[in-house]
C-alpha cells in the first residue's frame, strides 16, 4: 500500500515536470503542423508531404509532421489522438470515416487547435475543407477530345464511352459527368455509351475494352478513369490494331486517363499513341493549398467553424498533347511536382 502511494506521488511529480516543460517549449517553438495523409505508399501523397514540409518551413517557418494513415481507419483515428497529445498547433486531416474522432476534435478545437480537412470531410464538423478539383479537368478533357476528333474526322460522328466506376459517387461527380458534359458541349449529337464497369483492375479493363470495341468499332473517344485501368485499356486497343495515331492526328480514337504517372507522360507525347491526355494530381499545389488554408484560419482570414463555408478546390493539372506546348514543359512539370529527375523521352 505504502509503496503504491510512493509510486503514485513520484509519477505525479514527473508528470507535472514534463507538463511544465512542454508548456514552456510550446511558447518558444515554431508552429507545429500535423499533416495527415491516407497512405504514404502512394507517390502522389508522398510527394505532396515532401512539398508541405518544404513550403511550411520556407514560407511560415513552421514545422510539419506527417501522419501516415496506412490506408487504415483505426490508424488514422489514433494518429489524430497522437497529434492532439503532441500539442500540434494546427492539423490538416485526411481521415476516412471520421465520425469517431469528432468528440476529440471538438475538445481540441476548444483547446485552440486549428483543424482543416482534405479530401474526406469529418461528418458534422464544418471545418474548412479542401478537395482536388477533378471536375473542370474532366470537362476540359472531354471538350478537347471532341474538338480534336471533329477536326481530324469531321464526317465521323463522335461515339464515346468511359470505363471505370459506374456507381461511385465521387467518380461520377468528378470524372464521368463533367467528361460527358465536356464532349457534349462541343458535339451535342455525340452518341454516349455510358460508363462500363472495370473496377476490378487492368485485366477487367482489358476485356471490357476488347468487347466494347468489337461490338462498336465506331467508338472514338474513351475516358479510362484510372491509371491502373489505362494499362489494360491501351494494350487491348493495340491488340485489335488500334490505339495508334498518325503523328498526333487521331486515326481510331482518342484516349484520356487519370493520375498521369510518368509512363503516361511519356505515352501522351508519343505522336503514335492514341493516349493523348491525363488528369494529373499536382503535389505542389495541393501542399500549398493545405498549408495556406491552415494559416488563413490561424490569421483569422477563414473562420474555423462555418457550416455554410464552401469547399475549396485545388485544381488538378491537365497533361495533354494539345495542352502543353512541348514535351519538355510536361517533363519539367512532372519533375518539379514529384521531385523526380526524369529526362525528356525521344520518340
Amino acid at each position: 500500500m505504502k509503496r503504491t502511494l510512493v509510486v503514485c506521488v513520484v509519477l505525479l511529480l514527473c508528470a507535472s515536470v514534463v507538463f511544465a516543460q512542454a508548456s514552456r517549449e510550446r511558447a518558444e517553438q515554431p508552429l507545429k503542423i500535423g499533416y495527415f495523409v491516407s497512405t504514404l505508399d502512394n507517390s502522389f501523397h508522398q510527394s505532396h508531404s515532401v512539398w508541405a514540409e518544404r513550403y511550411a518551413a520556407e514560407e511560415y517557418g513552421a514545422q510539419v509532421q506527417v501522419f501516415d494513415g496506412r490506408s487504415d481507419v483505426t490508424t488514422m483515428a489514433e494518429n489524430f489522438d497522437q497529434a492532439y497529445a503532441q500539442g500540434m498547433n494546427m492539423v490538416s486531416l485526411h481521415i476516412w470515416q471520421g465520425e469517431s474522432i469528432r468528440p476529440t476534435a471538438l475538445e481540441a478545437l476548444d483547446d485552440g487547435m486549428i483543424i482543416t480537412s482534405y479530401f474526406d470531410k469529418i461528418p458534422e464538423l464544418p471545418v474548412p475543407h479542401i478537395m482536388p478539383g477533378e471536375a473542370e479537368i474532366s470537362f476540359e478533357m472531354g471538350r478537347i477530345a471532341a474538338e480534336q476528333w471533329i477536326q481530324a474526322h469531321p464526317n465521323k460522328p463522335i461515339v464515346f464511352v468511359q470505363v471505370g466506376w459506374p456507381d461511385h459517387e465521387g467518380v461520377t461527380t468528378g470524372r464521368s459527368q463533367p467528361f460527358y458534359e465536356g464532349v457534349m458541349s462541343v458535339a451535342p449529337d455525340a452518341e454516349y455509351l455510358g460508363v462500363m464497369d472495370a473496377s476490378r483492375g487492368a485485366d477487367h479493363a482489358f476485356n471490357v475494352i476488347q468487347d466494347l470495341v468489337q461490338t462498336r468499332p465506331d467508338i472514338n473517344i474513351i475516358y479510362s478513369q484510372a491509371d491502373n485501368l489505362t494499362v489494360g485499356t491501351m494494350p487491348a486497343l493495340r491488340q485489335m490494331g488500334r490505339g495508334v495515331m498518325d503523328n498526333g492526328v487521331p486515326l481510331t480514337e482518342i484516349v484520356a486517363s487519370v493520375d498521369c504517372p510518368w509512363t503516361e507522360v511519356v505515352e501522351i507525347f508519343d505522336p503514335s499513341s492514341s493516349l493523348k491526355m491525363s488528369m494529373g494530381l499536382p503535389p505542389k499545389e495541393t501542399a500549398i493549398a493545405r498549408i495556406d488554408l491552415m494559416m488563413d484560419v490561424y490569421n483569422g482570414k477563414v473562420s474555423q467553424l462555418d457550416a455554410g463555408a464552401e469547399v475549396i478546390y485545388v485544381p488538378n493539372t491537365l497533361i495533354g498533347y494539345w495542352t502543353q506546348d512541348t514535351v519538355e514543359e510536361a517533363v519539367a512539370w512532372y519533375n518539379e511536382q514529384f521531385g523526380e529527375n526524369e529526362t525528356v523521352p525521344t520518340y
Partner: protein
Amino acid sequence: MTVLTTDQEGMKQIKHVSDSKGTISNLTFIIFAMVGVLVIVFTIASMIVPRFFDLATMSNLLVQQSELIIIGIGVTFIVITGRLDLSVGGVVAMAGVLSAYFAQANTRAEFSLSSGLGLPYWLAVVLTLICCMGIGAVNALFIVKFKIASIIVTLGGMSLARGIAMIIARGAQRNVGLPPEFGFFGRFSIIGTINLAVCFMIVLVLIALFVEKKTVFGRKLFLIGSNKTAADLSGIKTDRQIAQLYIISSFLAGVTGILMASKFCSGNSSIAGGYEFDALVITVLGGTSIHGGFGSVICAVIGAFILGILSTSVNMLGYPPASQLLVRGFVIVIAILAQRYALNKRNV
C-alpha cells in the same frame, strides 16, 4: 473332400469382356453435355448480341480466357484430388509485381515505386517463378504436413501472395523504368489478337491432357481423389503428389502473372482479382467434381468459354455490372444442377 453341387440354371455363361462401356463413360458424357451447353450459349449469344458472331470476337474470347485456362489447369488437377487451391489469384498478382520489381531499373532514387532491382529480365522471370513455387510449397506444407483443410490453407496463401504484391507495389502498380523486353511476351502476336498467352495455353492444355490420361502422375490424381486412404495403402506417395500439385499450380499462376504483367507493361497488385474463384468456377462448371476423382482439364476449357461468352456478351450489350453477376450466377447454377441431374439420371 470337395462339396460339389451343380445346377443347370446357375451356370454362368462365359461372356466376352469388352474394353469399352458399349456406351460412353460418365466423363465423356458430361464433357459432351457441357459442349452442348457451350454450343447453346454460343448460339444464343450469336443471335442476340450484335457482331458477336465474328472471327474477331472469337479471337478476343480466346485471348481473354487463355490466362484463366492456364490457371485452371493446376486448379483442375488439385480439384481432381478432392482439394482446392484458392491462392492462384494472389499468386498471379504477386508474380506480376515481382517480375516488374526484379526487372525495374535500380537507378532511380526518389520514389520507391519506380526503382527496382535492375536484374536482367530472364533472371527476373526465373526468380519470380521460384517465389511463386514458394507460395505453393507453403500451401503444400500446411496441407500435407499439418493436415489443415486446403480451403483454409490456400485462403491464407491467397492473402499471403496478394499481401506481398500489395507491399511491393504499395497497393498500386510498378510500371516505371521497365526494360523494353519486359513487354515482349505481351506484344508478341501471331495473328490479330492471338498472343503468346494463347499459344502457351494451347500447349499447356495439350500437355495437361496427356499427363492426365496417359501418365502415372495423372492416374494418381484420380486415385487420390477417389479414395486417398486406399491410395496410401496401395503404396502411392499421396502426400508427395499433393505437394507437387500445389507447387505446379502456383508455378502456372506465376507464368500467368508474368504474361499479364508483360501484356500491361505493369506489375499491378490489383490484377487478377477474383481469379481464384473464377478458376474454380470454370473447373466445376465444365464438369469436374469438387468431391474428387472425376474431371478433366478439358472441362475447365469448356467452362472458361461458357463463362467467357457470358461476360463478353454482357460487355458487348453494355449491361451494368450487377446484371453481369446475376447472369453469371444464374447460368452457373443451372449448368451445375443440370450436370448433376444428368449424371444421376444416367447412373440410377
